[in-house]
Every structure is written in structure tokens, then in C-alpha cells.
């Protein structure tokens, strides 16, 4: 499994090396990658049915981080979807993205995304799972913003990244807490130690953090808005994001944790409420859209809500229904998206109001759209029929009045979904041919075969449901509960309440479809209503932050160097004074046995003269020279106190400083500006206080004797451990070598910074 993921990542980077012509020729064969992965995972089907398949490679074992992978029923379902739909998406994209200037880049990102998604569903270690989780966010950022010349695409990509990536960070916090509670990051260990986790007082926080991650990723209210925005991505990408990957990650995560979290701290209640609200919201919104992709996006939101709801109910029947519904949704949603993409490609529009009567020229595409819509609507004998039936059954059979209310809501949402499925899959093909349509463009086989395969596949799976049930759906349940369960799919159910409800859904949905005429009017009204939405709240929050920091920047960075220095010094003063006040008392201790030698006295006198000269001269040249004199005095002092290293460094630095000053002098006014008395007083105060504090600290350092231990250690071990006799140098390159490494990097950045700033100015 690790190999499979490494191959994906390796190829993703390898594709970048291709030049355009060669890339286009070779990438025609790229569907073979997901196809071979599909075959690989299918071949493991038998082992999955008997139990999980595990792989373990240590990564950072000291911290409990390992590349451990596990293929059990739940992972198996998701890998099949990722690779299966992936194969069709690759195949479709070869034609869809043809002649795109960034054809190669597209496949590179797509492969990266697929690899991350596979890693996510296979990971058995929380930290690796998190890494793959964020990798999907990052790679989907590139995919959503793929048409980067489009301002809206860029914006959508950033929104998606901010929301899903931000949720991922919260998720990491939850994972770390979980790891601390259970003492391991391995998922299989966590599942075993469910009792330990249930007893922990941190459980509510963990659950909320898990929700934060999953709800953002799976576009639950109120974080749903990134998903409709993400339709700026090329259609094959939307297909992939919506049907098999990305948004299903949150569902996967919560399903994975449901065995230990079920019944704990409002887990079920929150899921049912959030999932239910999202389901209704998405379903109602979907039919009022006129853009085909927007309709599909909102039905996805609704479907994700349904999945969350099912996890929240958490009964065996609900989990079974969840597994079936994930498959159903993937198949019909991918089909509808691919049909939409084909329409978009040939008719150059996705606007429902501008499309009609395509059936005349596009019989096969219409068949694909119809089959997908039928499955989405849940008409017998499609696979969707079984999905819906299981959902209704799981709710009805509990005989609880609360769940009956939920059942009512699901019923209502499904009516809208039936209508939306037909709007997206059938409506463009029926009705009159709209006059303004351009002549029909040819439709490539590459665009037709994938949706047709999905439609036919859904139909066959619907007629013979036992195969899928035995091999995919039941193992999911088994992996979650550890128990096996009897098959529950039947092609023909008796005339019980649930069946009647199923039929009623379809009838009402179709009535809605035939009497409802989509128009811009509804859409505008709805937009008007959503003024107070989470999207706008987020936007205003971002604007507020921007404004705050722009004010702060103008306040602190006004372009005057002297002002910067003052800000830095004042901040340091506050920091140090606070520390002195709270931390330690100042101890003045006269260090005994020291007296000032004559030569030291002379040097200090020289330095005082230099300082006075620096302050009182009217010429910059004189002040620069005087500063140099001060530095040389410092050098001498270092020498007197036997610190030749420091003296040498000080000397070199001083020389360079003078050189720099002289270089800059030409650009500065010749005479110092000393007119502003208030400014002078302020500067004197700041520098006076800072000098006093430094003096205090120096005295403190002399007074505190404990620091001798450290110098003692260095002195004794410099030669033993580091084979050096010059302690200063040994400290620099060995004992504190990491510090030095960082310091030279800082120096490097500073050098490059000055270089680029000045070059930038020169180019203006």
C-alpha cells in the first residue's frame, strides 16, 4: 500500500519533467495508473472480507509516528471509489483537458491528489492520516484554482484551502490529545482502547475537534460554502472532488471513529442536527439554481448531510445504509458531473435556461444522464433505489418518535433531490431546442464512455445488488463493528410502509419536476436571503483583520529608521523591565579585588570623548569617525580582559560599519537635523533608559555566580568532546552549532533582503 502511494507521488513529480509534446503523448496512457491500482486493490478483496490487511514501516518511531497502513472494509470501499472513479476521470480528462496549456500540470496535480486521498483512507496512524488530510487540502487548492487566470477561481481555491486546511489544523489538535490519552497514534490501538478514551475528561474537546475537521472538509453547515465555490475547477476535478474524494474524507473520518465515539458526549445529537440541517439546506437550495454544476454542488452538500445523519444514528442498519449510500452517491454524482462536463464542452454553456432539446443529437449522452438521474432519484431498479430504501428502513425500524421526525425530513429532502437529479440529468435533453444555440459540436468518445459506463454500471448493480453487498457493503459494517451481518438488499420489497414512502418520494419529486420551472428570479431571491450567511461573516471577518493590520503596520512602520529603532528599544525595555519586576531582584554586589588600571582608564576616557563627539558634532563624517573610535576603544577593552576573539570580531565589524556608513553618506543630508527639540528629548530618554537597563543586567550577570557552572563545563569539555582548544570557537561550531547554523541563515536572508530591496528600487 505504501508502494502504491509512493508511486502516485513519484509519478506526480515525474510528470513535471515532461516537455509538452512528449507529455501529451504519454499522458494518454495515464488512466492505466488508477486502473492498475484498482486491480491491485480488487485483488485484495478476499483478504479484506476475512479481516484487515496491515502494513507497517517505522518513520519517526520515537514520537509514535509510523507509516502504518490498514486495508479493511471501510478503506476498501473508499480505495475502490478513488481508483474506480479515478480511472474514469483520468480517461475523461485526456480529452477534456486537451489543448489546455497546462495539460501536464493538470495530471501532475491530479495524481498528487489521488495519492494523498489514498493515503488518507489507508493510514492507520493519526499523524500520517493528518499529513495526507492536509495534502488533499493543498492539492485540491491547486486543482480548484487550476484556471489561475480567472480571479474567481483563485478566490475559490483560497476559500477552500482556508476552510479545509484550517479545519485540518484543529483536527491535528484533536489527534494529539487522542494520542496522549491512549498513549499511541495507531488507529487500531485507539479503537481497542475505547474505554480509556470514553473515561477521559478531554473527550468532549476531542469530539468537537474531530467535528471541526470533518465538518469543514465535508462541507457541513455552516462551512458548506467552499464547495459550491469550488465548481470553478475543471469539471473532471469537480467530479472527483464531489463523488469519490475530498468531501468524503470527513465522512470517512467520522465513520472511522464512530465505533469508539458512538454514544459519547452528544456525538449522535450533534451529528443528527448538523447533518439533518445540511441535508435539508442543500436539497432545497439545489433546485433553485440554474447553473448545472451549482445544482449538483448543492445536492452533494445534501448527500453529505445525509451521510453525517446516518453516522449520527449509528445503528447497524444505519451504518449499512451509509455504506450503500456512499457507493450510490459516488456513482450517480460522478455520472451527472461527467454528463454536465460533456454538455459544457460541446454547447459551451452550463446554464439550464439556455439548454434544451439536446436529445435529438445526443442520444447516448442522454441515456447516460437519464441513468444517473434515475439512480439519483432512487427509481427501481437502479442502485439508488436500494440506497434510499436502506436509509428509510434504518430510520423506520427503530420505532422512535424522534427518528420518525428525522424520517420526515429525509423524505422531504429526497423529494427535492429527485427533482434536482432530473433537472441536472434530464432537463437539458428534453424540451424545445433553444434557438440561440450554436451548431452542435462533435462529442468525443472519451467524454461519452465514462458517464455511460457509470450509468450502466449503476443499473446492473441495481438489478443484481447482492454482489456489491457481499463484497463491499458488508465488509464496511464488519470493519466498523467487528461483527458480521446478514444481507439486506432485496430487489423487490413487499408493500410495506418503507416501500410506499420510497414510491411517494419519487412521485412527489417528479410532480415537483414537471411543475417547477427554473428561473433566475428564484435564484436572485435566494441570494438576497443569504445576505446573513457564514460566507459573508467570514468575508467581513477577513476584511476586519486586514484593516486592523494595515492600521497597525502604518502605525509601527512609518518609514523612518529612527522610529523603527525607537519601537524596538521601547518594546525591549518593557519586556525586560517586566521580567526584572516579576522575575528577580536586582542584587548589587561590588566585585571584590578589582580596580581600574591606568591603561583601562585612558581607553574609557577615549571612549567617552568619542561619545560626546558623536553627539555634538554637526557633521556626519565626524560622527561616523567618532563612532569608529568608540568601537576601537571597545576592542581594546576586550583585549585587556583577555577576549581576543571578541576583540577581533569587534574590530572587523567596526571597520565594515564605517565602510558602510561612508558608502551611504553621499545619500544623506550633510548636516544632522537637530532642530526638533522634542524629538531629541524623546530619543535621549529612550536611549538613557535602555542604557541603564543594560548596565543593570550586566551588574546582575556579575553578581549571579551560578552561571560559572556552564563556563566550567565548556572549559573542561572543549577538548575532550570537541577536540578544540579555543572555547569560543568550540561553542560556536560544536556545542551551540545549531544556533550558529540558524544565525548564518539569518545573515544570508539579510544579505539577500538588502540585495533584492535595492535592486527592486533601482528597477523602478
Amino acid at each position, binding site marked *: 500500500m505504501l508502494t502504491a502511494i509512493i508511486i502516485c507521488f513519484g509519478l506526480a513529480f515525474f510528470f513535471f519533467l515532461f516537455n509538452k509534446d512528449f507529455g501529451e503523448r504519454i499522458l494518454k496512457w495515464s488512466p492505466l495508473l488508477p486502473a492498475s491500482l484498482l486491480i491491485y486493490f480488487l485483488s485484495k478483496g478476499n483478504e479484506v472480507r476475512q479481516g484487515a490487511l496491515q502494513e507497517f514501516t517505522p518513520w519517526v518511531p520515537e514520537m509514535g509516528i509510523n507509516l502504518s497502513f490498514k486495508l479493511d472494509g471501510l478503506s476498501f470501499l473508499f480505495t475502490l471509489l478513488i481508483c474506480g472513479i479515478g480511472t474514469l476521470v483520468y480517461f475523461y480528462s485526456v480529452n477534456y483537458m486537451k489543448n489546455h496549456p497546462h495539460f501536464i500540470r493538470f495530471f501532475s496535480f491530479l495524481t498528487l491528489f489521488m495519492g494523498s486521498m489514498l493515503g488518507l483512507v489507508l493510514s492507520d496512524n493519526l499523524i500520517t492520516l493528518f499529513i495526507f488530510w492536509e495534502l488533499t487540502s493543498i492539492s485540491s487548492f491547486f486543482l480548484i484554482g487550476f484556471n489561475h487566470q480567472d480571479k474567481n477561481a483563485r478566490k475559490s481555491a483560497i476559500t477552500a484551502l482556508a476552510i479545509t486546511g484550517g479545519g485540518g489544523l484543529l483536527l491535528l489538535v484533536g489527534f494529539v490529545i487522542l494520542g496522549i490519552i491512549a498513549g499511541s497514534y495507531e488507529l487500531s490501538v485507539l479503537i481497542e482502547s475505547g474505554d480509556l478514551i470514553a473515561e477521559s475528561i478531554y473527550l468532549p474537546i476531542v469530539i468537537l475537534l474531530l467535528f471541526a475537521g470533518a465538518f469543514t472538509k465535508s462541507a457541513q453547515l455552516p462551512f458548506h460554502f467552499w464547495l459550491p465555490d469550488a465548481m470553478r475547477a475543471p469539471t473532471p476535478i469537480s467530479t472527483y472532488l464531489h463523488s469519490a474524494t475530498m468531501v468524503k474524507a470527513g465522512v470517512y473520518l467520522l465513520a472511522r471513529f464512530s465505533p469508539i465515539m458512538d454514544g459519547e458526549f452528544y456525538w449522535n445529537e450533534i451529528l443528527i442536527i448538523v447533518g439533518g440541517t445540511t441535508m435539508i439546506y442543500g436539497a432545497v437550495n439545489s433546485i433553485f439554481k440554474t447553473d448545472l454544476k451549482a445544482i449538483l454542488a448543492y445536492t452533494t452538500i445534501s448527500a453529505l448531510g445525509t451521510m453525517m445523519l446516518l453516522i449520527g444514528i449509528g445503528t447497524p442498519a444505519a451504518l449499512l445504509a451509509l455504506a450503500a449510500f456512499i457507493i450510490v452517491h459516488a456513482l450517480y454524482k460522478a455520472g451527472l458531473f461527467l454528463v454536465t462536463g460533456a454538455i459544457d464542452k460541446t454547447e459551451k454553456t452550463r446554464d439550464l435556461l439556455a439548454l434544451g432539446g439536446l436529445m435529438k443529437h445526443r442520444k447516448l449522452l442522454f441515456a447516460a444522464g437519464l441513468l444517473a438521474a434515475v439512480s439519483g432519484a432512487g427509481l427501481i431498479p437502479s442502485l439508488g433505489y436500494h440506497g434510499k430504501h436502506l436509509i428509510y428502513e434504518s430510520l423506520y425500524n427503530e420505532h422512535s418518535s424522534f427518528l420518525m421526525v428525522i424520517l420526515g425530513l429525509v423524505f422531504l429532502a429526497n423529494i427535492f433531490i429527485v427533482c434536482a437529479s432530473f433537472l441536472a440529468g434530464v432537463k437539458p435533453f428534453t424540451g424545445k431546442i433553444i434557438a440561440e444555440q450554436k451548431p452542435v459540436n462533435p462529442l468525443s468518445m472519451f467524454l461519452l464512455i465514462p458517464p455511460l459506463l457509470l450509468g450502466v454500471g449503476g443499473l446492473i448493480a441495481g438489478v443484481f445488488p447482492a454482489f456489491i453487498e457481499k463484497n463491499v457493503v458488508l465488509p464496511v459494517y464488519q470493519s466498523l463493528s467487528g461483527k458480521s451481518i446478514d444481507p439486506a438488499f432485496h430487489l423487490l420489497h413487499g408493500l410495506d410502509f418503507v416501500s410506499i414512502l420510497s414510491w411517494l418520494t419519487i412521485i412527489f419529486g417528479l410532480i415537483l419536476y414537471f411543475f417547477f420551472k427554473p428561473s433566475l428570479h428564484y435564484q436572485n431571491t435566494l441570494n438576497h436571503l443569504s445576505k446573513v450567511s457564514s460566507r459573508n461573516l467570514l468575508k467581513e471577518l477577513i476584511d476586519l483583520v486586514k484593516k486592523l493590520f494595515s492600521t497597525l503596520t502604518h502605525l509601527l512602520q512609518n518609514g523612518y529608521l529612527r522610529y523603527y529603532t525607537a519601537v524596538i528599544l521601547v518594546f525591549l525595555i518593557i519586556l525586560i523591565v517586566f521580567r526584572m519586576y516579576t522575575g528577580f531582584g536586582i542584587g548589587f554586589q561590588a566585585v571584590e579585588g578589582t580596580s581600574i588600571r591606568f591603561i583601562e582608564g585612558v581607553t574609557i576616557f577615549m571612549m567617552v570623548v568619542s561619545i560626546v563627539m558623536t553627539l555634538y558634532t554637526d557633521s556626519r563624517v565626524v560622527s561616523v569617525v567618532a563612532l569608529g573610535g568608540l568601537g576601537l576603544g571597545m576592542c581594546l577593552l576586550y583585549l585587556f580582559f583577555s577576549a581576543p576573539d571578541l576583540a577581533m570580531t569587534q574590530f572587523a565589524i567596526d571597520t565594515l560599519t564605517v565602510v558602510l556608513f561612508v558608502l551611504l553618506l553621499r545619500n544623506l543630508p550633510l548636516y544632522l537635523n537637530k532642530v526638533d527639540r522634542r524629538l531629541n528629548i524623546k530619543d535621549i530618554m529612550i536611549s538613557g533608559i535602555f542604557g541603564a537597563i543594560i548596565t543593570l543586567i550586566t551588574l546582575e550577570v556579575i553578581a549571579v555566580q551560578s552561571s560559572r557552572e556552564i563556563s566550567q563545563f565548556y572549559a573542561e569539555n572543549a577538548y575532550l568532546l570537541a577536540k578544540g582548544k579555543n572555547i569560543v570557537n568550540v561553542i560556536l561550531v560544536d556545542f551551540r552549532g545549531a544556533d550558529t547554523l540558524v544565525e*548564518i541563515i539569518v545573515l544570508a536572508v539579510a544579505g539577500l533582503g538588502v540585495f533584492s530591496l535595492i535592486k527592486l528600487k533601482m528597477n523602478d
Partner: protein
Amino acid sequence: MTTLILKTAATYLMPLLLLFSVFILLRGHYLPGGGFIGGLIASIALVVYGYANRIDRIKQFLRFHPGILIPVGASLSTLAAVLPLFFNQPVMTGLWLSGSYPIIGSIGTALLFDIGVYFVVVGATLTIIFSIAEENVKI
């Protein structure tokens, strides 16, 4: 600012100072010196030469932009830091060759690290000074 005395002196001082800086760099582990001081001295040597003649003469002498030294130095130091990993030892462990040489003493990763520091210091200092000097020329 070109005077004959400075110009003549700089012509002889520059190679001497450069040599001295290398000397300071190499002996650093045993006697006062090291990469940082060595780098500063080398920069001074080149800057003095540039002052005496013209700043672009240093470029002619170096034949490359001093900024190149920054990544070279940083890579050398990083290499010295991670080299022990390949010998199954923690990062930044000192590795030493057997045998002793005049001035340098034992050769080990510490020296490699210091050479990296030397290059970064020379590169960064000269880049800063050149950028500022060139800007002055343009103005």
C-alpha cells in the same frame, strides 16, 4: 577617491589579507579565530581593494557575484551538520579524520562547518556593500 598610495597599498594588502583570513579560519579551533572573523577579514580585504580602485574591479577579480557564496556556504554548513546522520549518529555530532596537520590540527566536520560560516559571511557582507555601492553609482 582613488589615491595612488591607497591604490598601491591595496594591491598588495588584498592578497595578504585574504591569506590571513584563511589562516584565521583554519586555526580557529585552537587559537583565536574562526569562520566568522575570517569571513569578516576577507570581506574587508576585498572592500578595501574595491575602495582603492573601483567597486567593479572586485567583481572582475572574483568573476562571479559574491551572492553566490551565500548558498554555497549555507549548504556546506548544513552538510557538516547532517553528515553524521550517514554514520548513524545524531545531527551535529563532530566527526574527525585521524591524523594531525600543521595549523589546522585535526580535520573534522567542525572545520567544514566553519568554512560554511566563512563563505556565508563573505557572501552576505559583500552583497550588502555592493548593492549599496552600486546604487550610489546609479544615483
